C-alpha cells in the first residue's frame, strides 16, 4: 500500500530550481532512502513534505489526501514527523521534556481541566511521561532524562531528536541526515535503531549522505542531483547505476 505519493514536485527560489519535477512513492512499512550530493535538493524535499515550504507546483499525497496546501501543524497531525539536519532540539529543556513536547499530538487534556485538578489530566500527564521515558530508553538514553538537551554528546542529540519525533507516533518518519557528524560507534547504534523501527513496521524516509547507513537499512533508494531525480531502485541497483556514480564522483572533484 502506498503511504506517500509525490508527483511532479517542483520548488523554485527566484531563478533557481531547487527541486525539479520529482516523483516517488513510499509504501507503508518501507524504508526509502533519499540521497544525492550536497545541494541536490534533499532537505528542500523534506521542507516541502512538512509544509515549511510551499511547492511551486506538483502534488503531495499522504494516505490518499493532499498535503501540499496544509500548514505544518496539520501535516504533523496527519501523521508526519521529522528530525532536522542541523539538530533543532529545544535547547533549554531536559531530554525528557523534549520528548514530552513530542507527545502533544497524542494528548488531549485542556488547561481548564488542569486548573481544576481533574484526575483524567493527571492520568494523561503520567502516561505521557511514561511514554517519553520508554522512548528515551528505546533510543538508549534512559539514563539521560534529566540532562539538558544541548549538554548531550552529538550522537545522543541525534537520537533524542528521533525519540521526540517518535513520541507523536507518526505514520511516516522523516529523518534528515541522522548520521551526520557521528563516529562509527554512534553510527552502529543508529543503524540498529532504524532496523528495529523497521521491524515494528515504521515507515521511514531517510535522507542520508553516509552510504554505509543508506545501504544498510533502505529497502529502496531515490537519488537526486541538481534537484532532479536521476535514479531509483534497490540498494544493489543504485550502487551499480552509472549516473549515480558519475554524480557522486563529480562532486568529489
Amino acid at each position, binding site marked *: 500500500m502506498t503511504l506517500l505519493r509525490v508527483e511532479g514536485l517542483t520548488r523554485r527560489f527566484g531563478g533557481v530550481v531547487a527541486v525539479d519535477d520529482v516523483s516517488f512513492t513510499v509504501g507503508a512499512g518501507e524504508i526509502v532512502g533519499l540521497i544525492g550530493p550536497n545541494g541536490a*535538493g534533499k532537505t528542500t524535499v523534506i521542507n516541502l513534505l512538512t509544509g515549511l515550504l510551499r511547492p511551486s507546483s506538483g502534488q503531495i499525497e499522504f494516505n490518499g489526501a493532499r498535503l501540499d496546501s496544509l500548514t505544518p501543524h496539520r501535516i504533523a497531525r496527519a501523521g508526519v514527523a521529522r528530525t532536522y539536519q542541523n539538530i533543532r532540539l529545544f535547547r*533549554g529543556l531536559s531530554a525528557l521534556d523534549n520528548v514530552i*513536547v513530542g507527545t*502533544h499530538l497524542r494528548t488531549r487534556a485542556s488547561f481548564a481541566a*488542569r*486548573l481544576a485538578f481533574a484526575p483524567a489530566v493527571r492520568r494523561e500527564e503520567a502516561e505521557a511521561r511514561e511514554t517519553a521515558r520508554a522512548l528515551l530508553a528505546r533510543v538508549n538514553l534512559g539514563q539521560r532524562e534529566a540532562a539538558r538537551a544541548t549538554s548531550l554528546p552529538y550522537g545522543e542529540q541525534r537520537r533524542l531528536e528521533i525519540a521526540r519525533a517518535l513520541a*507523536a507516533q507518526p505514520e511516516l518518519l522523516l529523518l534528515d541526515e541522522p548520521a551526520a557528524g557521528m563516529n562509527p560507534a554512534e553510527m552502529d547504534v543508529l543503524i540498529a535503531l532504524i532496523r528495529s523501527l523497521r521491524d515494528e513496521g515504521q515507515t521511514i524516509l531517510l535522507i542520508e549522505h553516509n552510504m554505509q547507513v543508506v545501504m544498510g537499512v533502505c529497502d529502496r533508494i531515490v537519488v537526486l542531483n541538481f534537484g532532479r531525480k536521476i535514479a531509483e531502485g534497490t540498494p544493489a541497483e543504485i550502487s551499480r547505476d552509472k549516473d549515480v556514480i558519475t554524480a557522486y564522483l563529480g562532486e568529489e572533484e
Partner: protein
Amino acid sequence: MFGESVRQLMAINALLALSIYLTLACGQLSLANAAFMGIGAYLGAVLTLNAGWPFWAVIVAAVIVPMLVAVLVGLPSLRLRGVFLAIATLGLGEVLRVVIVNLRATGGAEGISSIPVKTHDWHLALALAVALYLTWRLRGSRMGYAFEAIREDETVARTMGINTTRYKLIAFVLSAALAGLAGVLKAHLFRAITPGDYGFVQAVDILTFAVVGGSASFLGPALGAVLLTALPELLRSNVLRDVVNFEAGWQTLFLNGVILLLVILFLPNGLVSLFTRQWRRPTPLASEPATVEAT
C-alpha cells in the same frame, strides 16, 4: 514596613508582571499590556461613574473587553516575529491614547478623577492569587509545554503538530485579561486616571519587572514587580535618608536604568536566578526569528 498604598501598588504591578509573563512564556515580546490595562481602567471608570454598574460586573467587563480587543489585534499581528511584534503592540498603545483623548466619556486629556474607591485589599489578594495559580498551573501542562516549545523554536513546534497561532493567541488573550484586571483595580484604588498613564513608559515599566525578576518562571516577574515597586520607598525610608538623600525624581529613573542594564548584562535570567540553581536556561527572552534552511 511599607505604607498601604505601596503594598497595594506592589500587588497591581505583580499582576501586570504576570500578564507580560504569559506572553513571554510563549516567546512573544508583546508590549500591549499597558494598553490593555488602559482599556480596563477606562472602561471600568466609565461603567462605574456613568452607568452605575456594580463593582463585580465592572471587573468582569474590564477583563472581558481587553480579551476581545486582544483577539482582534492578535489575529493579524501575532504572525509578526521578533521585535516587530513589540513595535506593532507599542503602536496599539499610542492609538488607544489618541482615542481616549478624543472620546467625550473619557474626559479627554485631563482624564477622569474622583473615581470612587471600590478596590479593597481582598480584591487585590484574590486577583493576585488567581493570577499566580494560573501561571503556576501552566508549567507542566500540555499548553505549558506547547508554550515552551514555541518559545524555544517556533518552526520546530509547528512541525510537531502544535498549532502555534492558537497558542500564541491564547497567551495574548490571557495576558490582556490580567492587564485589564490590573487596570480596573488600580483605577478604583488611586481614583484618577489620565490617557498618558498607559503609554510607552508604563509598557517599559512592565517589561522591566519581568526582565529584572527573570522570565524563566512565573515567580521572577512577580518578584521583580515587588522589588522595583519597593525600591523608591526603600530609598526614601528613614534608614537611608541619613546616608543618601534620595528624592524620587531623576535618581529613581537613573537607578531603574542601572538595575535594568546590570540585570540584562550580567543576570540574563533575572534576579530569581540568584535563588534557584537552574541549568534550564539561558532562556531566550522571546523566540528569535528562525529561517528555514534551503537545500
